[in-house]
């Protein structure tokens, strides 16, 4: 291990650069609290790979996820936030300083905000891993363009699944939407989807499980599902999966930071984790609503709590 004197030290390190992280950075840097963010994936997180965001306040006509992410980034950088493209692999509590192992070497921070968000879950069926990126996809805005005039299957019934199904209609000739139980998406998305159902672009299959993804040679040819206890084949050129979210908290498992049963980070009402000086906000937090507006709000709250903590005015950690 390097001599602690040689390790770069920051006031705040934010792990992640999604809406919670960038909102927090806007607040900390405007308070002249030096802040570095680490992002291993895309700046903006899942928001950046979402076609259109219709429920983020302030955008009457909705906003493209990529554009919102870009604006958040610019705003944070305007006040001095520094975004490092790299990964934090471990957090160590060393009292007043936290030591982070990163792909750029060890870093010390007086306070840490975990805002690593979540990622789309896998279904866990045969063929899913085998045909990943060769017919099985989790990012419609990245990979949808490969399916011009082709048949698709979308798996899922929540907001993401319906939003991305609507996006994919601009490419696909037809989409079979496989929904395990019923559609849980917001009414407005369901109304929008209904238009494509009427046009014959989308067929919704409620109460249908996805059991296997089958291909020939390199690419996917069909999905096998079950409806009313009967096996059903859905011929397709590709499958897009949106069946919920899982936390990006793998790197925290060896640390003393308490996670819930699923792996989301547990915090008190001040967004403090079980390590003093380490906070969490956004989708990664246990109990989060998984909404971009909530994540931005939590980021702002976390920044204010971090300021209190750095000024030694914060509440004690509740374990």
């Amino acid at each position, binding site marked *: 291990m390097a001599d602690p004197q040689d390790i770069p030290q920051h006031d705040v390190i934010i792990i992640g650069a999604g809406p919670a992280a960038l909102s927090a950075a806007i607040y900390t840097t405007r308070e002249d609290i030096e802040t570095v963010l680490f992002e291993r994936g895309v700046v903006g997180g899942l928001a950046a790979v979402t076609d259109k965001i219709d429920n983020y306040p302030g955008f009457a006509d909705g906003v493209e996820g990529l554009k919102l992410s870009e604006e958040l980034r610019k705003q944070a950088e305007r006040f001095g936030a520094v975004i490092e493209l790299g990964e934090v692999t471990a957090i160590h509590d060393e009292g007043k300083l936290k030591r982070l192992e990163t*792909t750029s070497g060890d870093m010390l921070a007086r306070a840490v905000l975990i805002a690593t968000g979540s990622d789309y879950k896998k279904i866990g069926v045969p063929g899913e891993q085998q045909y990943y990126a060769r017919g099985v996809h989790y990012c419609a805005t990245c990979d949808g363009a490969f399916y011009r005039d082709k048949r698709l299957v979308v798996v899922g019934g929540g907001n993401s699944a319906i939003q991305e199904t609507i996006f994919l209609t601009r490419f696909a000739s037809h989409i079979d939407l496989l929904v395990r139980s019923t559609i849980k998406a917001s009414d407005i998305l369901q109304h929008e989807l209904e238009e494509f159902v009427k046009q014959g672009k989308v067929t919704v299959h409620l109460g249908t499980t996805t059991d296997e993804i089958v291909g020939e040679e390199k690419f996917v040819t069909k999905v096998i599902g079950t409806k009313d206890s009967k096996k059903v084949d859905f011929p397709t050129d590709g499958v897009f999966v949106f069946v919920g979210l899982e936390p990006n908290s793998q790197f925290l498992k060896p640390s003393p930071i308490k996670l819930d049963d699923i792996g989301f980070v547990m915090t008190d009402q001040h967004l403090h984790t079980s390590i003093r000086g380490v906070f969490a906000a956004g989708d990664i937090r246990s109990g989060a609503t998984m909404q971009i507006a909530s994540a931005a709000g939590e980021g702002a709250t976390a920044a204010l709590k971090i300021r209190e903590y750095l000024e030694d005015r914060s509440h004690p950690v509740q374990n």
Partner: protein
Amino acid sequence: MVKNITIFTTNTCGYCQMVKKYLGAKGMTYEEVNLDEHPHRQAEAIDLSGAMTVPVTVVTKQDDSQEVIVGYNLARLAPAVA
């Protein structure tokens, strides 16, 4: 040493922006092939990567050997362009 870099992208791909941002921060130039504007080049991207996804970054070295990086994968991209 890198001779040239080509990135296959689409308009809506957030990970494509990250690859461009990373190379831009390193001061590296690249050719961008936007598959929304040039859909006829999709097959080329699929042949090179074996995948139906973007970004696909093709790094050609001075000896004309090629390294193909699928997705935004810093662990592979960084050494490929070093």
